[in-house]
């Protein structure tokens, strides 16, 4: 087990190193960093001086080493657009994105599992077919279109929910939260549904397929032969066995949720990291792009690692280092 985690840890470091290399290359080679700092009329001598002060004349390996060192200390450089440290900008935007991702994941999990279980247990009902049709649409339509549709329905036509922003937030230390105000909570609803819909359909289809599979197994038949109640069988035995693979996928999807929030944040003008990133791409703000890439990579890698460990905890068969199935 420890060997397994160590191996995963090494893989994670390798991935981060690769992404770091890409981020560094962007930083260093996509456009001349000096041009981003100075004006058009800066004299050549001054440019050379800046070049030297930035250490751009050192060998590439030295520069990468310095870059990696900075990144580890949380220094991602200065944004071209905002003239502020990137780390501070990201930290300011992070709570908005994480709260949105959390709500979207909770929505996707609860509704996805419910719909998936329903579709598996009541396979031939009309409602199950409606759920399946919804899932097809959710999987096919682009996220931004769904967001616009929701805005049109619930903001423009019905006027129930806000169409942009976080509403009122409360500051807790450096963290700002929308959970503590009514307007903050209302503002979370549409973006969370938009962001979570794709994962929801994914989870629903997965739960349905897994559950149908599990219901055909011998131990479910044996559980019925033991006279256990249908409720115990469906929501104890079958659901638990269904959720093992679902946890993995859902966990891995959490990273995508954070990455996909780029689109949702743009649709809803949600002041998170994704919106910052899109603005950075539009304005060619390389330091923010590089930092965001690294951050998302770190989040992905961490989630993968946590999911792997969780998986071994949930499934007792994997707990033995041999992993031996008799």
């Amino acid at each position, binding site marked *: 087990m420890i060997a397994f985690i160590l191996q995963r840890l090494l893989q994670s470091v390798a991935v981060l190193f690769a992404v770091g290399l890409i981020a560094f290359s962007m930083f260093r080679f996509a456009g001349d960093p000096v041009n981003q700092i100075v004006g058009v009329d800066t004299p050549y001598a001054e440019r050379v001086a800046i070049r030297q002060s930035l250490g751009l004349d050192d060998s590439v390996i030295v520069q990468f080493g310095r870059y990696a060192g900075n990144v580890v200390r949380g220094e991602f450089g200065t944004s071209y657009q905002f003239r502020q440290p990137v780390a501070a900008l990201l930290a300011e935007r992070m709570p908005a994105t994480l709260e949105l991702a959390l709500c979207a994941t909770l929505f996707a999990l609860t509704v996805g599992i419910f719909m998936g279980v329903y579709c598996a247990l009541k396979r031939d009902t009309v409602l199950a077919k409606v759920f399946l049709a919804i899932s097809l649409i959710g999987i096919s339509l682009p996220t931004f279109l769904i967001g616009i549709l929701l805005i049109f329905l619930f903001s423009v036509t019905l006027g129930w929910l806000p169409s942009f922003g976080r509403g009122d937030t409360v500051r807790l230390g450096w963290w700002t939260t929308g959970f503590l105000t009514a307007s903050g909570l209302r503002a979370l609803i549409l973006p969370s549904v938009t962001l979570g819909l794709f994962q929801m359909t994914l989870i629903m289809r997965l739960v349905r397929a897994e559950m149908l599979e599990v219901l055909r197994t011998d131990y479910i038949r044996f559980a019925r032969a033991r006279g*256990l109640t249908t409720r115990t069988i469906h929501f104890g035995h079958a659901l638990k066995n269904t959720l093992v693979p679902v946890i993995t996928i859902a966990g891995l999807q959490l990273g995508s949720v954070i990455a996909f929030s780029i689109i949702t944040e743009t649709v809803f003008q949600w002041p998170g990291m994704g919106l910052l990133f899109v603005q950075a791409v539009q304005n060619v703000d390389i330091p923010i792009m590089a930092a965001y890439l690294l951050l998302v990579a770190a989040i992905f890698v961490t989630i993968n690692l946590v999911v792997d460990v969780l998986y071994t905890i949930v499934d007792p068969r994997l707990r033995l280092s041999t992993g031996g*199935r008799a």
Partner: protein
Amino acid sequence: MTEPVLSVRNLRVAFANRRGTLTAIDDVSFDIARGEILGVVGESGAGKSVTGSAVIGLIDPPGGIVGGEVRLQGERIDTLSPEAMRRIRGRRIGMIFQDPLTSLNPLYRVGRQLIETIRTHTDLSEKAARGRAIDLLAEVGIPAPERRIDGYPHEFSGGMRQRVVIALALAAEPELIIADEPTTALDVSVQAQIIALLKRLGTERGTAVMLVTHDMGVIAEAADRVAVMYSGRIAEIGPVRDVVTNPLHPYAKGLMGAIPTLAQETDRLAQIPGSMPRLSAIPKGCAFHPRCPSAFTRCVVERPNPIAVGAHQVACHLYDRSEASAA
């Protein structure tokens, strides 16, 4: 004579599919007395397992019981509501499946599966149920049960798992146990132990056992009486010693001729030419007639009904003396 534990009369089970209905079990009748082990043999697809499932009410749609009746201690159970039938399952009829490796939920501890079964059918507290679970594990021969109870199924060997499965089937002290190929997936040495365990149930607790298997060796060793099934019907039923030493039905003769004496692993049914018809193509008359060495005209047109010959019941026109010379 006391009431049999299980009494099945003229049972018919059919499955609906796109082309119509297929009759899997046709006009099957038998009794099992207290403490008795009835062996049910036949080739795969003969309807042995379906019979067991029908008795315990686990035939899933599109299948269902379409005729006859099933009585447990004289009480009719095939017409009960699903909820009432659920209460009988595990409580009064226990079931053991073929593959102990897949019969247990891999994510639940053995103890949890035992305790939930016990508490579903009794009023015992969690703690009392746990004590009873340990007793059960000890009774089926699992060493150090107070420690093993907290193990997961994958930590048990195949034979030990089948013991756990039997303990689960026994959890609420049922009157009847349906064992569907309980030894097929096990090693030969373990088979003998499991059979000994089933026999002990009959003698010590008076549990009736319906032992479904395709293995005549197991039947000969364990059963008191045996029913030979072919194409969803009972070809012959009688005391095991009689049927084994003096089979009457041509199919049973072929089957007994195929019992290996020393080696367990030979192709037992190779001596009967041809193969059992599919459910969709059961021939008119006696289902066995295309393969029967002694078939005559009547077998092709008329279906034989069970006839009492000594202690046997045999469904074969060869033994119908009513027309020629009254016995």
